[in-house]
């Protein structure tokens, strides 16, 4: 419901208290927002590329990590799991402040790569946990059986392993994307005002008092996130029909 109100505001014009519905419907807010003058378009592109970069890097890192954590019992596993979980649940403020100093030294403040690196911190835990669960449920003997049937290691990866964990990879990537997409404080701290992602832009509009512009930008900020999640959901529905179980109860050495 709150989303609806934002939509209405975005097309409102001169909507003052106590009118229940906007007196005039105008798309002036939208035309401004979508124009290059507002900087919203550029910010959208920037935020998208940062989020996609974060998602890709996080997914790539989470694959081997999840495989190690999900499949093997090694000393220190619990500690690693806690370390993985920590950035997701603990406030990012403490890390952000210190990181700013470090990045300043490295010349990474105010750069997009710096922001991507910073975003990785809260984004990594989710795909890692998802991949860990996926590999825990994936019976290793499938890979052995494929080898015995004549598949080379790369073939096993392509034909057996990746299809098995593909849903998890998608979910992990989507989660990482969402985390990066909504980041505010980290971007503010590391970006030093130069990297204007959508949440920052939105904030500026929100405190400007122009509710109509704010409404429009909010929806712009909302849409890709919804699309990503919706897409993942749709894929999941689709695969429920065709996919299968990759775990086998009662199989042992």
């Amino acid at each position, binding site marked *: 419901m709150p989303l609806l109100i934002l939509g209405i505001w975005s097309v409102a014009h001169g909507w003052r208290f106590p009118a229940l519905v906007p007196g005039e419907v105008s798309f002036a807010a939208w035309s401004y927002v979508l124009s290059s003058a507002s900087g919203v378009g550029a910010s959208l592109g920037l935020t998208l590329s940062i989020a996609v970069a974060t998602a890709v890097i996080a997914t790539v890192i989470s694959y081997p990590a999840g495989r190690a954590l999900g499949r093997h019992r090694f000393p220190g596993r619990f500690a690693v799991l806690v370390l993985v979980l920590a950035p997701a649940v603990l406030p990012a403020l403490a890390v952000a402040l210190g990181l700013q100093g470090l990045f300043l030294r490295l010349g990474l403040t105010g750069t997009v790569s710096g922001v991507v690196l910073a975003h990785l911190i809260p984004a990594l835990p989710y795909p890692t946990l998802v991949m860990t669960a996926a590999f825990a449920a994936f019976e290793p003997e499938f890979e052995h*059986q494929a*080898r*015995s*049937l004549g598949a080379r290691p790369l073939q096993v990866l392509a034909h057996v392993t990746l299809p098995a964990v593909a849903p998890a990879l998608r979910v992990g990537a989507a989660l990482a994307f969402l985390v990066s997409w909504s980041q505010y404080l980290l971007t503010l701290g590391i970006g030093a005002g130069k990297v204007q992602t959508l949440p920052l832009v939105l904030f500026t509009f929100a405190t400007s008092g122009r509710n109509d512009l704010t409404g429009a930008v909010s929806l712009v900020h909302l849409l890709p996130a919804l699309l990503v999640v919706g897409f993942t959901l749709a894929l999941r529905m689709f695969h429920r029909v*065709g996919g*299968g179980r990759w775990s086998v109860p009662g199989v042992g050495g």
Partner: protein
Amino acid sequence: MTMSLALLDLSFSHPGADKPTVAGLDLMVKPGTLTALLGPSGSGKTTILRLIAGLLAPDRGDIRLGNRSLLGLPPERRNAVLVFQAPLLFPQMTVAQNVGFGLRMQGLPKPVIAARTGAMLERLHLTGLGNRTPEALSGGQAQRVALARALILEPDLFMLDEPLSSLDPGLREDMQALIRELQRDLGVTTLVVTHDQAEAVALADSIAVLHDGRIVQDAAPETIFSRPATAAVARFFGGENFLPGHARDGLFHCEIGPLPLPLGAGDGPGTLTVRPEALVLGPGAEAREAQVVANRFLGLHCRVELVVAGCRLVALVAPDLARGLVEGQKIGVTLPRQALWVLPTDPAPQTLHRTVP
């Protein structure tokens, strides 16, 4: 071309284990025959299969298929296919795609794969199931798909890990017959691992009994039954009746009395054994007097426990012959000469856990 399999002085320890899983094991499988590797759970049978398949590397020893060594070759180049205990059909592929998997990995052209897949499906009575997904198959069907997937590759060595343990008893016999038939038709050298002695007897040309990482006896089923190598092997196959004693001058002296020895048996201490189903109850020329201690109906036969000259003997007799035998009754029992067998003295008596007969 069929090849022989030879395991030479094979040794392997799992990291962290205090004793080796496989210790200096030697085994020969003649080309085109089926050998059952039999042993209780945890005796290292699956480890041996994995060593041959290339999923594990031995600490010592050699694995030879035909006249080439498999050591150092990755699993996909050994042409020795292992079918695991669970069918492990790839869930995202259809039955046909599963069966054709190995051929696809080799890069064979699609029409060839399709033709061979069709032929294999037919051979295993799976025609029409080609487009199904593994979820939609019954246990027996899934098992057959796994077999098809392996055999289509025409491997030099075919290995099965407890292939029938997850199937219902009724299905098991059909599958045993199917495996026998396929193996004979294709003439592929086969190694089956199992803990079920009945299954081994039904499937194998030769049974290799595994204990403590070594092969204790490797022979045809009939030989194992009538001439077991150790008391442990005998007990594992349902043998009872062990009489310690001493052989001298063609006679075996034990508590029951002197018994005629099989020809060629040497002198010295040993244990005489005779299979329960070989004992003959009733009057006879060489019958000894025995007293019935117990008589239990077990369906296919009766288990009769007797005491002869202070020694306990067990006989398995056809039900109508044992009908009416009651505790305390006196009856004659004959130990036929050809059924007697002397075991060498075990340096350390071992017990193999036996599956319920």
